[in-house]
C-alpha cells in the first residue's frame, strides 16, 4: 500500500485539506476526491489539455502533476474560473460563437484562454492560436473557439 500524505492548499479561493496517495495525480485528486468534475481526463499524458488547471497563476496539465505537489499552492479550476466576471464573459462568448460542441475540451480551453489573455490582454489572433497549442478539440475545428476568445480580447465597439 502506497503511503498517504496529508496536504493543504487553496482551491478556488477556499482552503482545503485532503489525504492523498503518493502517486496520485492532481487530476485524480480533483475529480475523485474533491468532486470537481469540470476538469477532464483526456489522454493522461500532457497531449490534449482537457485537464488544464491553474497552479499559482500558471496553467499546467493536472494529469502530469503529482497531487502531493499541490501542497501550499493556490489552485484554480474551471469551477473557480466560471464564477469570475472574466469567466462569465468568456462563457457567453463561447456560447455565442458556437465554440462548444461535445464540450469535453471546453474547460481546458477556457483555463488556457484565461492564461493567454492575462499574460497579454492585447493578444493577436496568432498569439491566441499559439497559446492554445496544448489544447486539442476534436469537434469544432478550432475556428469558433479562436473567434470566441478574440471577441473577449477585442470586443467590437458596437457591442453586437
Amino acid at each position: 500500500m502506497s503511503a498517504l500524505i496529508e496536504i493543504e492548499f487553496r482551491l478556488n479561493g477556499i482552503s482545503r485539506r485532503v489525504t492523498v496517495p503518493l502517486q496520485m495525480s492532481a487530476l485524480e485528486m480533483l475529480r475523485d476526491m474533491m468532486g470537481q468534475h469540470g476538469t477532464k481526463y483526456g489522454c493522461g499524458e500532457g497531449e490534449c489539455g482537457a485537464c488544464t488547471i491553474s497552479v499559482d497563476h500558471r496553467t499546467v496539465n493536472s494529469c502530469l502533476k503529482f497531487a502531493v505537489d499541490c501542497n501550499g499552492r493556490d489552485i484554480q479550476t474551471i469551477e473557480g474560473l466560471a464564477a469570475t466576471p472574466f469567466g462569465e464573459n468568456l462563457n457567453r462568448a463561447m456560447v455565442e460563437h458556437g465554440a462548444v460542441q461535445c464540450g469535453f475540451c471546453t474547460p481546458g480551453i477556457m483555463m488556457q484562454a484565461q492564461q493567454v489573455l492575462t499574460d497579454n490582454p492585447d493578444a493577436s489572433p496568432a498569439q491566441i492560436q499559439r497559446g492554445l497549442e496544448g489544447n486539442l478539440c476534436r469537434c469544432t475545428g478550432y475556428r469558433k473557439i479562436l473567434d470566441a476568445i478574440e471577441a473577449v480580447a477585442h470586443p467590437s465597439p458596437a457591442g453586437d
Partner: protein
Amino acid sequence: MAELRNYAAPRSLAEALQVLASGPATVLAGGTDLMPQSRSARVRFAPTLLNIQGVAELRGVRRRDGAVEIGALTTIATLRDDPAVRNGAPVLWQACDHFASDQIRNAATIGGNICNASPAGDTLVPLLVLDASVVLASGGAAGIHERRLPLSEFLTGPGRTARRPEELLVEVRIPVPASGWVDRYVKFGTRPALDISTIALALGGTLFDGRLENARLALGAVAPTAIRAHDAERVLAEGPLDRARIDRVVDAADAAIHPISDVRASDWYRRELVHNLLRRILTDVCPN
C-alpha cells in the same frame, strides 16, 4: 511501478542532499515526464519520492563571470521569457519557445529535461552547442560538495546520466559565446506543438573570413544520447566553408550518427533529414 513508501519535500538544498545521502530516492521536479513514466512503469522508482519544488535556491537565471547560470528548477517558460537567455543563448531560447506546449513549459524544468536524458530532449542539442556544463551537488548539513561536468560527459545513454545516486543536478552553466558568434537550430517534427523531435540539430561558431571557427555541431534523436559531432567540427575548422567542405562536413556528421527506426521515422529518413537540414544551415550561416 515499485511502491513509493516515503515522501520528502525539503525547503533547502542541504536538506534535499541529506535525503539523497540517506538512501535511494526518485527526484520529482516538474513531474511532466515522471508522471507518465510512473504510469507506464518505464522507470523503476526508488522507495522515496523526493520533491525538490520547495528548494527556492534552485530557481532562476543569473549572469556571472562570463556565464549564464541557470538553476535546475527553472521552468522552460521562465527561460523562454528571460532576456539573458534570449540575447545570450538564442538557440536555447528557440528550443524553449518550441518546447511542447504552454502548459508543459509552465511545469517542466531544465534540470528535469537534462536528467531525463532522452536522445530527443529538446534543450540538450542547444546546450551541447553552447558547450554547457552541469553542476552536481552532494553532501548535506555537514557541508555541500559540488562537481562540474561537461554536458556531453553527463549524458551516457538513453535515460542514463553520470549522476550518482547521492547527487542532485543543481545548475546548468553556459559560457557566453565570444563576439561574432553565430548559431542556428532546427528541430524537425510533424507538427509545431507537443512533438518529440524526429531529429534536431544545432550549429554554432565564430564567423571569420568565410570560415566557421571554433565550430560546434550537435545532433539529437540520431544516437543513444544527444551528441556533439567532433569530426565534423574538425572539418569545419580546417578552412573556408565552400561547397566541397560542406560535403565533407555532412559526410562526417553522417558517420557520427546511429539513428534507429521507430514510429517517428526510419533510420534512412533520419539520415536524409540530417544531410539536408545540415546542408541548409551550413549554407545559411555562411552565404557564399
